[in-house]
């Protein structure tokens, strides 16, 4: 049994003696803890925006209600299904690697990345449709509407935009993981980097789970 597998078994941090000076930690529990802490900060980042959303919805209930009618629920639902499925594929990819099936793991990861692109492409069409209708920050169409509607669409662009940035970051991270598996840097014995990347991807998914009903379904 090699060093990293031992680490997982004993659940204690082990210092790799091969690298002198730049001692490399092998502490999967610590790595996971670090990622969970980071995910908590991400939740709070969005938490600030959810707070703004809650306040303005409370102040402008009718305007939020009528503005939501203009969003395309079909694309929204479709994107929800895409993201949920991609969360499943990334989880399967981790399990596949744990069980030693590298090929399947790579394939599932590639499918996850493809889903992520698909989500962004749908988002692109959705946004272009809104912008085509003249609904974007500062447009004459939007500034003529009530303040509540301006706030709704302001929040819509900002929150789905920040979420979109997270999807792009997720694509970059997952692509690195794919390359690492191919190059044997992430292996069935040492898969912690893939595992915490998966955690990040689940976060991207779960934030969308909240954005979807707040913007598309509450109408």
């Amino acid at each position, binding site marked *: 049994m090699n060093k990293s597998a031992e680490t997982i078994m004993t659940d204690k*941090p082990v*210092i790799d003696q091969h690298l002198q*000076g*730049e*001692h490399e*930690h092998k*502490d999967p*529990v*610590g790595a996971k*803890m*670090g990622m969970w*802490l*980071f995910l*908590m*900060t*991400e939740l*709070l*980042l*969005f*938490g*600030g*925006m959810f*707070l*703004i959303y809650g*306040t*303005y919805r409370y*102040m*402008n209930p009718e305007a939020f209600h009528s503005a939501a009618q203009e969003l395309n629920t079909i694309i929204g639902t479709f994107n929800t299904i895409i993201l949920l499925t991609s969360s499943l594929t990334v989880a399967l990819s981790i399990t596949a690697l744990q069980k030693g099936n590298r090929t399947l793991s790579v394939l599932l990861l590639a499918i996850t990345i493809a889903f992520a692109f698909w989500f962004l492409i749908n988002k692109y069409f959705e946004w272009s449709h809104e912008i085509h209708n003249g609904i974007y*920050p*500062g447009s004459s169409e939007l*500034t003529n509407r*009530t*303040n*509540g509607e*301006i*706030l709704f669409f*302001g*929040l819509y*662009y*900002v929150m789905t935009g*920040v979420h979109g940035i997270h999807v792009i970051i997720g694509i970059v991270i997952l692509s690195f993981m794919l390359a690492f598996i191919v190059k044997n840097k992430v292996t069935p014995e040492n898969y912690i980097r893939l595992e915490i990347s998966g955690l990040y991807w689940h976060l991207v998914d779960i934030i969308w789970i909240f954005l979807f009903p707040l913007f598309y379904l509450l109408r």
Partner: protein
Amino acid sequence: MANHVIAENYVDFYKEKGKHTGLGAWLLTTDHKRIGIMYLVAIVTFFLVGATLGFLMRLEMLSRGRTIMDPQTYNSLFTLHGLIMIFLFIIPGIPGVFGNFFLPIMLGAKDVAFPRLNLLSWYLYISGGLFAVVSVFLKGGPIDTGWTFYVPYSIRTGTDVSWMILAAFILGLSSIITGLNFITTIHRLRAPGMGWFKMPLFAWALYATAWIQLIATPVVGITLALVAVERLIGIGLFDPSLGGDPILYQHLFWIYAHPAVYIMILPAMGVVSEIIPTFAHRTIFGYKAIAISSLAIAFVGYFVWGHHMFSSGMSDTARWIFSLTTFLVALPSGVKVFNWVATLYKGSIELGTPLLFCMAFIFLFSIGGLTGLVLGALATDIHLTDTYFVVAHFHFVVFGGGGFIFFGALHYWFPKMFGKTYNEKVSKAALGTMVIGFMLLYFTMFILGYEGMPRRYYDYLPQFATLHIVATVGSWILVGGILVMIGNLLVALKKGKKASMNPWGGRTLEWTVPSPPPVENFEEIPVITHGPYDYEYNINGDSDKMEENYH
């Protein structure tokens, strides 16, 4: 104890030949000690810049009307002074320098949990600092909104707000990464036998601080980012003409920025809890109370932000609740002060420079804390809002508290970090000068504020002239003291005598390794059998013997 057995051919971390040489040995290092030193250089530099700006502001206030600058420059100076001192000096100060250098050693670890992330967080700090500096020289001119970036002015002003916001955002990310690194380190890398209640109190303080960094910073990050987006494309979220609510911005800002006050003070309290038992040669009084009160301050600190907004439009119910919670936060702070004083009682006190820094801290911080209660009470706050009283209060807490202890910690750990001793007579004289200058400068501001001098004003009425002159003279004395103190340490770096392993007789783990420590800190990871301030347990005998082997 196993950690006393150290190889005779020990190489300290400055001389260790790593993968990289020259500048690369610093800029590409993942050694927590080198990163700590790099923070020290950067943070002291920014402190001197911030102090210079403050000095110039005081010079402007020496006489009525224009003295050395125009009003717009003055607006920029108080903004930059605040931003630099808060985001680049006091928030990263103690955790960045002493947390990095000493947390792993005090826990009996070889490094932090994520050494490479640690280096990344230093680079983020530096790039945040550079963005802040660059923003001053851009076309729009230096930012003039005050460090709080209050809307709607921060949306309308022609100065370069967005760059400064980018800088604050990056600095926040750096702070978050340091925080999650420390939390993971404390959870995962304590030496065998070091239970939670055998950790040094500095580690407890850093732990509480790290949680605040993690929980509060993202909220202000997104809030400031939204101001930048507002300036860029006008989404209306904080713009009243588009339906946005400026008060909501203030809430979101203070939800972070008040807990951030505890990011500034908690690590300082941790340092004081280290220095006092060392110089009283006595176990700390109420170890658990101090440890838990750190967490209590961190927790209650989340529910007091509204006291920054008593006069900006909140319901009466909200105001008295925030007033009540503000008074509550004084309790754990009081617990700490009483415990420190009780530790000194019947101790065999040695009046070393670091202890004198702690005395100055307790004195200044208590004044700052008690005047905080004056501001936390609704009726008096209405009278004192936005006056020099507030300015005096937060300088007593942040500078008299956090700032003084940053330098106190430097004097405490200087022999360990650099392996040199400094001239204690000069350092004590410098500290005395600083306290006198400090009192002249800031205590005067309490009176000015009480009499009605508004903060951030470029000019003042004739009746305030005398006190303004006193305050400005105080600023000269204070700056003089600071320069002597830093000069003394620089001389010590060049000419100081070699420091022994344990010059103060401290009991925590950093005093069981050589000064300066070797790259891996410990030859062998220590096994902890006793508490951090256990003065009944005698380590002096064999540690002295060890030193003879070295020199």
